[in-house]
């Protein structure tokens, strides 16, 4: 009888990286399908090219550096999909390719791969594209033929993700399964909604697909956000405040990208100054709620 001897615990919750990544990808599929429905095959080609390039780049990099190939864990697919959703539908097809390569090579693997990224890889790719080809990345919105329904169907969208904020309702499932943490989205939404009320901004101009994507999928990216409980509240609130500031003086799309990237810089700092003290009770109320 050959017995395995290993450290405790001997049972573990049925959750792993693959599950988290692939469920996130699946929750993003409805909005992708809506985008393809509205924009047609151009949107589909942008999504497929971006995802394929991300996966292929990761495969080549890991092959070259003799590491184990981890393209099956879904992280590269997720990065490529998030990048594609942030692009306008009529971009030249080399745009998603370059964006995906930048995301995977410079934002993910240059920092050490999964779990070691400092900046959200998809946002780094998007920021690179905005800076380099700003006129391609911010096209004039074209009103397509069709009846728009607020928050559900937007025929005047200028980016894939803007077509339907409500199609990302699957994020609630991710919250329920604790695949993404509720602290960042809650503080994020609270600050944005509060500011919108105080500054009398029209809700429909703020709560676009980009913002919903930012709140639930970009700002909750695990390795680029703080781990302490209070730190995550700070991170979410600061992102919300920055988006309003960006939005007031620029565009909300750039606001989402740059505010989250900017807050990514502060992640380590926030973690350092919010280390919880186990002997003090004043922080324990956070756990119970």
């Amino acid at each position: 009888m050959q017995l395995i001897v290993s450290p405790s615990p001997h049972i573990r919750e049925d959750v792993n990286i693959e599950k988290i990544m692939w469920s996130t990808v699946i929750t993003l599929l409805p909005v992708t399908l809506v985008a393809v429905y509205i924009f047609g095959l151009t949107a589909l080609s942008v999504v497929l090219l971006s995802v394929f390039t991300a996966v292929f780049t990761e495969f080549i990099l890991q092959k070259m550096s003799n590491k184990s190939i981890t393209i099956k864990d879904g992280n590269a697919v997720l990065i490529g999909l998030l990048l594609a959703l942030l692009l306008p539908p009529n971009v030249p097809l080399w745009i998603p390719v370059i964006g995906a390569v930048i995301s995977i090579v410079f934002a993910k693997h240059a920092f050490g791969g999964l779990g070691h990224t400092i900046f959200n890889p998809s946002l780094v790719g998007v920021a690179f594209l905005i800076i380099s080809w700003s006129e391609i990345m911010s096209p004039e919105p074209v009103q397509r033929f069709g009846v728009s329904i607020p928050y559900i169907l937007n025929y005047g969208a200028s980016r894939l993700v803007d077509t339907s904020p409500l199609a990302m309702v699957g994020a609630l499932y991710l919250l329920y399964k604790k695949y993404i943490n509720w602290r960042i989205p809650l503080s994020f939404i609270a600050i944005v909604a509060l500011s919108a009320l105080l500054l009398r901004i029209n809700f429909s101009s703020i709560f676009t697909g980009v913002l919903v994507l930012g709140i639930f999928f970009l700002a909750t990216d695990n390795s680029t956000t703080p781990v302490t409980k209070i730190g995550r509240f700070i991170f979410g609130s600061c992102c919300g405040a920055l988006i309003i500031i960006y939005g007031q003086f620029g565009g909300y799309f750039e606001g989402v990208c740059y505010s989250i990237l900017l807050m990514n810089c502060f992640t380590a700092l926030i973690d350092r100054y919010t280390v919880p003290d186990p002997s003090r009770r004043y922080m324990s109320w956070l756990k119970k709620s």
Partner: protein
Amino acid sequence: MKQITVMNVPEKVIIPVNDPLVKVGDMVNVGQKIGEKEHSSVSGEVIEISKLPHPSNKSVSSVVIKTIEDVSIEFHQKDNPSPNEIKKIINEAGIPIELSSSEIVILNGTDEKPYVTSNRAQMLEYPDKLLRGLKILMKATGASRGVIVISDNDSDVIESMKAAKNEKGIDIIPSKTNYTQCAEGLMKSAIGKDATAIVSTIGIAKAVYDAVSLGRPLIDTVITVKGAKEEKNVLVKIGTPLRIIIENCGGYRDEPKKIIVNGPMTGTAQYTDEVPITKNIYGIFVQYDGMIEEIRPCIDCARCVDVCPKNLLPNFLAISADNARFEFCLKYRLMDCIECGFCANVCPSKIPIVQLIKYAKSELGEQECN
């Protein structure tokens, strides 16, 4: 429904004893002293005294007794003993508890979730004996208050304990299922905020009742068996090898891959099924194929931070320990960790966080000694 099955007397028992009082060939009776704090759990002949495997994964000097016949003997109890006499009886009976004078006695009735049910079974089976055991412990330590902590999921247990309770000074506190067996320190600080407290397990309260009221030393214990063909709570003699217990529960389902004593969260995996049951074992778990998982890098998902009952940052502790940066471990309050295993349980990357924390603690302990 009967909660506890009494197991037949095994053909042999292995009892770890440091300095045996018996020699090979001696005949011993049930309850006879064979070591300073150890008693024989069967009547039979001593056939071997040597170093044998122990559940702590070490080899320990042990006495092997071959059962000759199943005899029952009368035990004699002392009437109305004083606190000091109780302490002496408890010590003589080989019950593993430190009795210092304190204001509160806490009886930990929570089971290590999710699979252990031995405490629950005992509380349903003989609540009155446990309450009298608690009374005796309170008398011995001079405590004015006794507390029984029961998981709030077990409402039937809370009901039956409340029905059995008839004295003042004993409270039954439902607890959130967060507390684990290993979290005794946590329970102490939660209940005895400003008072001194001692924590006793359910099994010890039963043993104290047996020892003081019946004069019977600690020779058997209730354990939960999972992963054998039948899954139940059984009353087994101390020293019964795991193999005999599992055979008694219908045997293995398949070729076993892992045998664990105590709870699946904090228990120890075994090298062999010939190790005996010792006094503080409360469960046996057998695992089969398909339960081994690959370790991936930490993705800072902070699931461990959310479940930590001590409000620590297990991910930082594990990474610091992995990189041998023990000064960072101390900064992140390594010593406050109670090793409950929640963090490793929820980790999507399957990182052995508890093992890394234990490693850091032992390394730091050695540094202090030098």
